[in-house]
């Protein structure tokens, strides 16, 4: 991974943005999905680490928008717009949505693939092209994005680092 840059960390159910000179990273994605939206010309990017497909599942008093695919991607887009990114030039790269355990109720078990489907649907709805993805499987992932190169590095246990 790139060491020269300062790294902005994104927690679980969390989002943040980054400009040239810094990278943005989230650690230990399992069934969760990490979504990067970026504007290549303005060299600004954002990342959101979502846990669940749809905010209609929420039973809490105040919805954390970064927890859900639908509200998270929309919220991230708004955040990027406020930082000067142009909505029409936003592109997306995504990773995660694995199945970590081989049991569970069928709903929970399929949470990884369901998250990925929901992410793709929301990107389509917002007309943001999905440039690259590494989703599914049964491995955890740590991802890091550099807004200058627009490369997403993905590290997995026993599988090293790949770039998309």
């Amino acid at each position, binding site marked *: 991974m790139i060491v020269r840059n300062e790294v902005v960390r994104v927690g679980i159910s969390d989002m943040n943005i980054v400009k040239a000179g810094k990278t943005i990273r989230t650690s230990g994605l399992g069934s969760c999905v990490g979504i990067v939206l970026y504007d290549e010309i303005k060299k600004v990017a954002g990342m959101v680490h979502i846990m669940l497909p749809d905010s209609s599942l929420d039973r809490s008093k105040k919805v*954390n928008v970064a927890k859900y695919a639908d509200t998270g991607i929309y919220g991230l887009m708004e955040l990027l717009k406020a930082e000067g990114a142009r909505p029409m030039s936003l592109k997306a790269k995504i990773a995660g949505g*694995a199945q970590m355990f081989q*049991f569970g109720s069928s709903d929970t078990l399929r949470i990884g693939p369901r998250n990925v489907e929901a992410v793709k649907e929301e990107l389509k709805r917002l007309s943001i092209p999905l440039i690259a993805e590494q989703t599914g499987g049964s491995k955890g992932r740590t991802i890091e994005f550099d807004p200058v190169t627009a490369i997403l590095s993905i590290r997995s*246990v026993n599988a090293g680092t790949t770039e998309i």
Partner: protein
Amino acid sequence: MSSDFSITDLHLDVLKEIGNIGAAHAATSLSQLLNRKIEMYVPNVELVTFDEMFELAGGPEEHTACIFLRIQGDVSGSMFFMLSIEGANHFIRLLTGDDSFDFQNPPVSEFGVSSMQELGNILSGSYLSALSDFTGLKIHPTVPSLSVDMVGAVISFGLIEISQYSDEVIVIDTEIKEADQTESKAIKGNFFLLPDPTSYMTIFQSLGVL
């Protein structure tokens, strides 16, 4: 709807007692299984964010051997038994006599993996049956499943149900460890019991501290 009451120190003390009793029974089972002395530490009970939960378990990127099961019945929740990779290797070598077993060097033998799963079965079973006796609540664990991966990736799966209600979770954390061994060689593991927020009331009611 579920966690509309505030959690007091008394509540946390009661949960500590749950951790105490559960882990004591699990430690006894492990001691019998290995014919070694096992000690346990005072449980740590906290209300934490999900990110803080990962930190408690060593950080989101730390590699772990984790046995996970869901609890159903009168109360629901998630339970994890987590060992370091070295600790899990050491345990499996001890139990199977296969000194070449190494999770860092896959593919690993099915026999080793199933003995690890059996460990999870025995330990979580004794933890939860003690909890059931203590509270009088019916508790049905699912079959435990093993994953060897990053802390964040495995724990977040157990937070799926909880996350629909809250961004915070009560964690009952108890560590058990092989006695009379140096820190690096000892078998050491942590139980993390995370009741679903919908079950807080039921647990406190059963123990008369509502």
